[in-house]
């Protein structure tokens, strides 16, 4: 088994002692599992080896900006199922196993179906999409996702004419998602985490189901094995670790809107002119940069998606 240090991961990024010890553990477990020919790259990896995804094509839907590093993308996550601190998901990633994962499709469809991840990987050629991601907390990254258009799954689901929206549901399993265990102070979120899109938003070519990152299988802290990426909306709408898609007639409930309706709307399009009630959305901190950047309407994807919202009062429907 080859243990390589690729050029883009500098020695300076490998610092903490406990990460080094985890590396030993990780090599031992990988060796024990008999995984031959898998590249073991850096300490930020989860306990299971990350496979390379085959036949990933470059997509036209790519921003010409420098991607954030794998270390940054996998060590700064809002994924409350795995802990509420930004560094918790990477630490608890080892609990989220994805063997035998299925995705149910139900609701306003001709026939309810259940997909395995392998089925989804076959729906369309895998593409690498380098997208901007803007968190509602006013920081952002550029991430090289690997995925396929959500429209491919939608077409296969055969929605009826009543299907106006899709609701997405995340896994509930306290054994694999330790922060879902009931606690004295209550749960941070009313599980399961749910999100939703209007049908035209879901069919938009930019909307993808992502199964990978940097050419490899998605790490747990980024929403393994399957997540949504809607780059023109605030990051919390890009729901992670999806187990169900429900095709529905009415606008579905979404978790952050349930929690704090005056702060998080259904649409949550990135909009520098509509501030969060408590902080400004006019600018953002691009991770890795020293100065703040101006936030772009629709996170810079206005050309592709602004037409979806023609005539909609974006201050009212935030």
């Amino acid at each position, binding site marked *: 088994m080859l243990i390589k240090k690729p050029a883009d991961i500098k020695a*300076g*990024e490998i*610092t*903490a002692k406990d990460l080094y010890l985890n590396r030993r553990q990780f090599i031992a477990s990988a060796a024990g599992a008999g995984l031959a020919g898998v590249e073991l790259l850096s300490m930020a990896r989860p306990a299971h080896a990350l496979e390379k995804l085959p036949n990933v094509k470059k997509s036209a839907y790519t921003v010409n900006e420098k991607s954030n590093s794998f*270390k*940054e993308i996998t*060590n*700064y996550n809002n994924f409350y199922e795995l802990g*509420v601190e*930004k*560094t918790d998901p990477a630490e608890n990633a080892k609990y989220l196993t994805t063997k035998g994962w299925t995705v149910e499709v139900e609701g306003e469809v001709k026939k309810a179906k259940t997909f395995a991840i392998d089925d989804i990987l076959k729906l369309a050629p895998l593409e690498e999409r380098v997208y901007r991601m803007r968190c*509602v*907390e006013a*920081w952002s990254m550029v991430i090289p996702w690997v995925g396929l258009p959500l429209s491919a799954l939608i077409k296969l689901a055969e929605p009826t004419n009543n299907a106006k929206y899709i609701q997405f549901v995340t896994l509930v399993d306290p054994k694999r998602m330790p922060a879902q265990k009931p606690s004295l*102070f209550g749960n*941070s979120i009313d599980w399961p985490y749910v999100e939703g899109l209007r049908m035209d938003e879901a069919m938009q070519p930019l909307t993808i189901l992502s199964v990978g990152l940097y050419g490899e299988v998605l790490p747990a802290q980024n929403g393994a094995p399957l997540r949504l990426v809607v780059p023109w909306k605030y990051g919390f709408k890009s729901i992670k670790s999806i187990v169900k898609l429900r095709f529905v007639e009415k606008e579905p409930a979404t978790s952050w809107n349930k*929690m*704090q309706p005056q702060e998080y709307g259904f649409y949550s399009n990135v909009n520098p002119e509509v*501030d969060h009630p*408590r*902080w*400004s959305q*006019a*600018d953002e*901190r691009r*991770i890795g940069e*020293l*100065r*703040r950047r101006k936030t772009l309407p629709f996170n810079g994807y206005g050309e592709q998606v602004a037409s979806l919202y023609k005539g909609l009062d974006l201050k009212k429907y935030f």
Partner: protein
Amino acid sequence: MLHYPFCIIHSPMKPSLLKPAVFSICLIPLGQLLYRAYSDDLGVNPIDMITRVTGSWALFILLTCLSVSPLRKITGLNDLIRYRRMLGLFVFFYATLHFSTYLVLDHFFNWPRIAKDILKRPYVTAGFTAFLVMIPLALTSTSAMIRRLGKRWQQLHRLVYVAAIAAVIHFYWLVKADIRRPAQYGAVLLLLLGYRLLVNRRRPKPARMVRKTPTMEPEELR
């Protein structure tokens, strides 16, 4: 103090062995931060990390500082008063670092942006208020100032309660959803303020306020 002699006669304060220790302990958070900066261990969003660490420690030391008076009364350890000024100044120190991080690292002197934040974002307004209020407290912390202000020093320094309340509110208003930490600080603050309200109801008015000794400590009269 429920009953405190208005005229204390004892020898000039012995140099405290603990003062250098307390001073050093208060510098540990800064030391940690510098070490982490040096070893590139400030995480993926270093500016956010520095802001959070300096803010948390300012608030933590503030609550410690506010614990001095109640602890003195409960335990009878009068000497604790000697550390109160130092603790207070460390609060101001970390608050200044916190505010400077915001001004310089986060917004890089973008004054219009900063002004907008202070005026329009309630959590920034609260934080800025807490900091502003600390300035006169820091400036009047010297023995000379205590002497000069006399009775008014005590009145002015009640502003520390405003600073503490504003700081907790600042914290509570800025967190996205996890209010546990601000709630914990708020609970402690409530206890510390509650103690003063409930236990210090009646206090004898002393004839003389201040002793003349070479090194002046702000004497506690309540």
